[in-house]
């Protein structure tokens, strides 16, 4: 997508500042309704999920102790994968958002929760809650736009490195928790600084992350397999843990990609965001910068209700079990203010997000202007852009865009 301010028709052009403030007031009212009715049943819900998750994880790990038997391996691995997904998505992510702080239970609180992930709770809360949720989809401010390793917006300049981004994205999906940990540390940026000049803060955070990774790995790849030695299941148990971690990683990566990367999700220009952005303007940005996944109750649970990404971005601190309830009201507001409520099934959103990753791995306009007949010339051009300097790239890019525009007008 192109930042909204550079699109032919800005999707917010029809809204006056007064409209936007009114929209904010209506959204505040939806939030207040939930705050007013939040209570015992919500508390019972999260405690139930925590309880089920812990029993499922423990049960699955117990079954895996005998994982030398294939049925036990399959059962245990499926159970452990589901348990790890629940722990990260419906519990960890949401607890760390402060969605359950209102219960005043120190055991289920954003300030005390630590999750089953390579990234530390503190690192995650900073990069996710603070940066991503505040500066959502602002190119150059929200690092979630491509995590600093991918180009997911036309307005991020193309360089040859991005040709490999479908591969990066796949590898990142498999080892997502480490990707997040590196991302939370701003590893790339910090490693570029000479060792002696790196900030104490970074060094401290890196130490904490490494310690966490060590503990996580010790549990999954040493202690648990060792407990399985009596049945001769060391290796199967290790493999089961590895598989469950990959399943969890690929799943959470897919869900998160669906939240902001599908085609049609809007992005924003840094300079178009006023210093004193109003609450209404902030809400509007969240509305356009997120996409929902439609599906069953179980699917919503397994995504940690991030399938209601739009509602989550509007109200990140409302309990996740209430997003389904506010969704129709939010959708009605989209209709009322003539905005596009971005929602599709999981396969459709995953496809769309991957399509964007592939499309933007290539220079703007390249895919659109390529046909079976001109493929050789196009490939030659791509080769030139890849091997040539910035000047060559700029010239070729201008030509590609001109052609793409011509095609568009013709169509």
């Amino acid at each position: 997508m192109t930042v909204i301010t550079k699109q032919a028709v800005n999707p917010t052009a029809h809204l006056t500042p007064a409209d936007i403030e009114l929209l904010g007031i209506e959204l505040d009212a939806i939030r207040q309704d939930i705050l007013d009715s939040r209570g015992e049943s919500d508390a019972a819900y999260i405690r139930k999920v925590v309880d089920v998750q812990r029993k499922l994880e423990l049960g699955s790990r117990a079954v895996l102790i005998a994982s030398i038997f294939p049925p036990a391996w399959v059962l245990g691995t499926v159970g452990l994968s589901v348990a790890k997904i629940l722990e990260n998505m419906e519990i960890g992510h949401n607890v760390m958002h402060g969605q359950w702080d209102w219960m005043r239970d120190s055991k289920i609180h954003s300030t005390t929760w630590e999750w089953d992930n390579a990234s530390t709770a503190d690192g995650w809360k900073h990069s996710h809650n603070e940066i991503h949720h505040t500066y959502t989809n602002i190119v150059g401010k929200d690092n979630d736009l491509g995590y600093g390793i991918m180009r997911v917006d036309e307005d991020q300049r193309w360089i040859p490195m991005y040709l490999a981004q479908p591969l990066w994205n796949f590898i990142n999906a498999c080892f997502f928790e480490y990707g997040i940990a590196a991302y939370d540390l701003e590893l790339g940026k910090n490693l570029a600084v000479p060792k002696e000049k790196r900030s104490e803060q970074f060094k401290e955070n890196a130490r904490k992350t490494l310690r966490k990774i060590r503990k996580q790995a010790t549990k999954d790849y040493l202690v648990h397999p060792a407990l399985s030695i009596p049945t001769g299941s060391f290796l199967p148990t290790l493999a089961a843990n590895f598989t469950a971690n990959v399943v969890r990683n690929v799943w959470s990566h897919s869900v998160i990609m669906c939240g902001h990367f599908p085609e049609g999700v809007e992005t924003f220009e840094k300079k178009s965001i006023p210093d004193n952005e109003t609450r209404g303007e902030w809400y509007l940005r969240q509305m356009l910068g997120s996409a929902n996944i439609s599906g069953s109750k179980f699917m919503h649970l397994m995504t940690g209700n991030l399938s209601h990404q739009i509602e989550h971005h509007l109200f990140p601190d409302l309990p996740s079990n209430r997003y389904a309830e506010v969704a129709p009201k939010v959708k009605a507001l989209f209709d009322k203010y003539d905005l596009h409520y971005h929602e599709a099934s999981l396969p459709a959103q995953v496809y769309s997000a991957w399509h964007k990753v592939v499309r933007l791995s290539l220079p703007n306009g390249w895919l659109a202007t390529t046909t079976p007949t001109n493929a050789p010339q196009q490939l030659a051009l791509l080769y030139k852009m890849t091997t040539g300097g910035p000047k060559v790239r700029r010239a070729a890019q201008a030509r590609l865009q001109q052609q793409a525009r011509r095609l568009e007008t013709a169509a």
Partner: protein
Amino acid sequence: MPTAALLDRLRRVADAAVTPLEIDDVLDVFHPLRSGAPLRGRVVEVRHETADAATLVIKPGKDWAGHVPGQYLRVGVDVDGVRLWRTYSLTHGPRPDGCISITVKAIPDGTVSQHLVRRVRVGQLIQLGQAEGDFVLPDPLPAKLLLVTAGSGITPVIGMLRNLFSRAVPVQADIVLLHSALSRSEVIFGEELRGYAAAGLLRLVELHTDVDGVLDVAHPERGLATIVADLAERTTYACGPVGLLDALEEHHTAHGLPLHLERFRTELIAIGEGGTVAFADGTVVETDAATPILDAAESAGVLMPSGCRIGVCFGCVLPLREGAVRDLRNGELTVAAPGDGVAIQTCISAAAGACVIDHPRSSA
């Protein structure tokens, strides 16, 4: 290897097997009352004493350290999903079944007391603190005792009496209990107290303020000295409303009589517009009702944790030890009584009265 060292090693392995949780978090799922768990209790009986009062018999966790009759404890209950803490007197001496009990009088608009009297069910878990307080009888007992109580002020005293009267060797003491309540039917433990009196265990004087009026401690004709002729020979223990206790204190001081008081601290947090915010390091910041505590504190030079500054990221959360704050987005009030430590978002909260904030964080 000594057992302690072995256990310690086992625990380390168990912790390593469940990281980032600790083994205690997992055990909590199955055995919340075990030794080593945060102190909790399970309600095993709810007994209604009067129309507005109920006794909860609670099986405390293994780490309950015991108590002396007259002491109180902090109780944390989830009311509408929110954990609130209050203090109640223990109304039994140590019991053979190891259970403890509290007796709660539902006060109008009392969020917690109404919940405890009317909505708590057998089987529910509640959070507990250890027993505290020095309103206890000495050992050996003074030969002559005067117990003065009013309303729910009977609760620590009933614990003392039950303990005294249930001992294998009966206690030889001359006890006068002067109890004041709104009416005869409002007397908590009325039947039990009258039973003690009938059995000759104590002399009971009931004052029902609907017919007798309020006790006027120093009154020359209707005062304490008239009701209890040998007042000068007695050691007095008293628990009740502030007015009564103040009057007793004045009277006994004037006459040089021994007196032990238990004051129920009803933590009345003054709600205002703006106020002072005091930090652990001694800094006190003056703020108005429209300025977030975060901004006010930073302007005064306090190094605060912060994040998005719009109430989204929860990066600025600090415990409010005491006081009241108002959410600047919707005006919602959050009140913390001393000892509570309610986590608040400082970026969208303004002071609504004098506040005490725990910062820098005492622990990670």
